[in-house]
């Protein structure tokens, strides 16, 4: 089977790239070894920075940090990428920008803090308004969440939340988020009669983000109708139900557009002709299946996602890192010579990745293009630290979009 574009990796960057390729009419296949890191993310999408003005911070990073992924994407392209993303997910997993794409909003978390976010899923949108009088619902038997703990933390931020505990018949004594969400997919009608007498005098009701794994839009709408006040979800510990919903929505959209997904098998080999890749070998049961393509988008993620494999060099007190599909060299972060990979300051770990040129093609340390028809996107890119800069989702969407544009060129 020969494809125009083969996307390796099914995280936010890979799926965005696949959608963009498909919408440009390319025959596209997405290959992934398993669930992407969407399963661990909160569902909120960062653009940049902990402050209120992400666009300014992007400009500063792009100018001030050579090799930063945002320096390869123009502000205009980032805006296009975000609106493309919002458009593609509009039906099944709608995203809102409460500030109309201008600034960050502050979303309450289950740890009782407020975190910056640029795009929030429909279910969390009301939470971003930071209403003062909120009733927080806790489920009996749900082990990964404590509404009381959350309310205590938020009290320090000036939000007075009250807590109520609800026992549902279908919840077992030790349920996780996913189990509870699946249970609520059919048990949600029990909620409204239990909560209706309690919501007097409140502006909104906060749930942990478990209100259904598939019927979440309907559940939210029906609950709001029954209770008469806004209902919102607060992201919980991983596994993240909003992340799984987004993953399903993006995959569903790819299928709808005629894209193919080869899901659950790792890439074990590549076929290289000269300076370009002609196919990749996927380890399916019994054999290596060859997937041929014109262009390849590498979006396999960083160390956590499996895109970069790290091993300790025997005899040396040093780690070696290499890109796991093509074996591209991995830069240990910029200006981090001699710094330990997992050092306390962390730039070696967080900023490591594949170096690219302006077209997102992988390059070596001398700047020569390593593979002409491969384009990199997302966490695999070197030179940024999403944990400090709060730009993981923004970089993923922007570079995924850009990589697909470059692949189609």
């Amino acid at each position, binding site marked *: *089977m020969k494809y125009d574009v083969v996307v390796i990796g099914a995280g936010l960057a890979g799926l965005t790239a696949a959608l963009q390729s498909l919408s440009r009419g390319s025959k596209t*296949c997405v290959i992934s*070894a*398993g*669930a*992407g*890191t969407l*399963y*661990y993310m909160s569902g909120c999408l960062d653009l940049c920075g902990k402050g209120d003005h992400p666009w300014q911070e992007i400009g500063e990073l792009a100018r001030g940090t050579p090799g930063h992924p945002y320096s390869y994407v123009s502000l205009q392209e980032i805006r296009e990428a975000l609106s493309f993303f919002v458009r593609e997910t509009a039906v099944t997993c709608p995203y809102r920008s409460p500030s109309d794409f201008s600034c960050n909003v502050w979303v309450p978390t289950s740890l009782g803090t407020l975190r910056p976010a640029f795009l929030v899923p429909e279910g969390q949108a009301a939470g971003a308004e930071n209403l003062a009088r909120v009733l927080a619902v806790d489920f009996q038997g749900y082990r990964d969440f404590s509404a009381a703990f959350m309310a205590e933390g938020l009290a320090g931020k000036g939000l007075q939340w009250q807590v109520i505990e609800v026992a549902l018949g*279908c919840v*077992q004594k030790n349920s*996780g*988020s*996913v*189990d509870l969400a*699946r*249970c609520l*997919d059919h048990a949600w009608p029990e909620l409204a009669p239990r909560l209706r007498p309690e919501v007097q005098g409140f502006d909104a009701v906060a749930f942990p983000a478990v209100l259904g*794994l*598939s019927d979440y839009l309907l559940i939210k709408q029906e609950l709001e109708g029954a209770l008469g006040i806004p209902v919102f979800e607060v992201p919980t510990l*991983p*596994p993240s139900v909003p992340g*799984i919903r987004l993953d399903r929505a993006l995959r*569903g959209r790819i*299928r709808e557009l005629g894209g*193919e*997904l*080869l*899901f*659950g*098998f*790792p890439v074990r080999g590549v076929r290289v002709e000269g300076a370009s890749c002609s196919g990749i070998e*996927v380890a*399916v*049961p*019994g*054999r*290596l*299946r*060859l997937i041929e393509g014109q262009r390849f988008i590498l979006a396999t993620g960083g160390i956590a*996602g*499996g895109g970069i494999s790290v091993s300790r060099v025997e005899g040396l007190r040093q780690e070696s890192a290499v890109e796991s599909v093509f074996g591209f060299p991995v830069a240990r972060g910029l200006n981090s010579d001699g710094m330990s990979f997992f050092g306390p300051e962390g730039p070696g770990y967080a900023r490591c990745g594949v170096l690219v040129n302006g077209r997102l093609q992988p390059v070596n340390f001398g700047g020569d293009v390593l593979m002409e028809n491969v384009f990199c996107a997302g966490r695999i890119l070197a030179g940024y630290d999403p944990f400090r800069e709060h730009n993981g989702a923004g970089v993923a969407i922007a570079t995924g979009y850009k990589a697909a544009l470059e692949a189609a060129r």
Partner: protein
Amino acid sequence: MKGGRRAEQYGALVEHCIKCSACQAVCPVAGYADDFPGPKQAGPNLVRLLKPGKTPHPGLNPAAGAGAGLARLKYACLSLVRRLKSDAAAAEETPALDWCTGCMRCELVCPHGVPVARLIREARGTPAGRMRRFRLNTWRDLLLGYPHLWGMPGTALSRLVNGFLSSGLGKLVCTKFLGLAPGSPLPRYARQSFFHYCRQCDQAHESTVLKGFGTVGVPRPVRRRERQPEHFSAPDSGDQAGESAVSKRLGPNGEHRTIWSREREGAPRLSQQLRDYSGDIRNRLRGGRKVVYFPGCYTNFNEPEIGKALITLLDLLGIDPVVPRAACCGVPLLAGGFRERAHRLFERNIRQLLPYVRDGYLVVCTCPTCGVALKKIYVEELGTADAERLAAAACDYTEILEPLAGELAELLRPGPVSLAYHQPCHALAQGTGDLGPALLRMIPGAEVKIVEGCCGQAGTFGFKKEKSRVAAVIGRPLIDQIAALAPDLIVTPCGSCKHKIAAASGQKVYHPLVLLIPRQQSGIQGILFF
């Protein structure tokens, strides 16, 4: 030693689980069956609990001590001690493992490659699981586990058996005495089994192996085309003639035709050079187009049309498949919890197919479950080199048609229909889920929409009384999707999925192959024969 090797493997495999619960989110059963703790708990967690870092049943393999009385006593004591001492929690959870349908969706979604379904099978095989196993429904599960034994009399007396099973008395017997679900009748037996059909063709001593088509309601397909494309080289007569262990018949035109080898005289001679078993299918096909067809029980006894369609299509593409007498793939027995019996069946099939494999044949399956058994389950359960050899030669029918797509495209005639395609879990588990729709999309005018989800039947799972409610609930979203699409035809390669979807939607469901065979003899230039 097997146990020791397993111990090493599981120690490592379990430690890769980071409890991300991705498997919990995709498991079709978790969330519907209250007793089932979900794949994460039932697989990695439970195996870890049974014996941290070690095999779940070290030295407690009952097969080892099955014969001798003393060994048996020791086994019983040890397992009692185990149950009392260490794995109280395990003993509590093990019966719930029966809820695992073996769909393997958990393995696909796992970001770290933990073989969750395999670990659940392993946990199921522990003494605690085994002792609770032989309770009720043993006979029912044995009955469902041996479809190839009941298939022979079933097809021979098909009218009687079908009549009985659909009668009031038959239903009463099934539901009251056998523990089968009242709402899901067993699939009907065909009038003639596929094996019987092949034998008949073989006995006719003609090259018209497709002679029987008229009698079973399938139109007689065209004979092989006169002109073959240039790259259709005739089977190599030089180095391979005489080397093949499989008896060959020559047709009137001298073409080699091997459809049925009832008995291979003497020990099959192995090819001299050790072949590269993991070579890709394209190269393997180029070297002689040698193919063995493993039809599986559903094709064999319930819908021989699938096998006939494959033979027709391969015939048009210049391939003559051999159909050896093979038993059931063994997955129904394994699903019923009869692990040792299933292993015996696995080994029997390997013995049967290995001579062909050594001779360079590819083993083609039209049933996704048979395919996943040959490619994956045999290797995981037996762990032998022979199983690995078979796995490297086994392929889904889509994999063999993919390299021939160019030639196939010439055969296809337009059929302006909308198709709803259901990807069976076991096609996805083989990594070939996308090839079926891709082949159907080659039909000019065909619009293929993929419907997502599990149908809930899972082979024998949906027939079991205690599980039929859950099976119905699991399948509902899929049936709703199909209803929303309102397709002209519903297509799926899996026999049990077909059965379930047909029963739930009230619409006939087709195997993709049946839609791919061209109808050239009738005046209508369509792909469909109804």
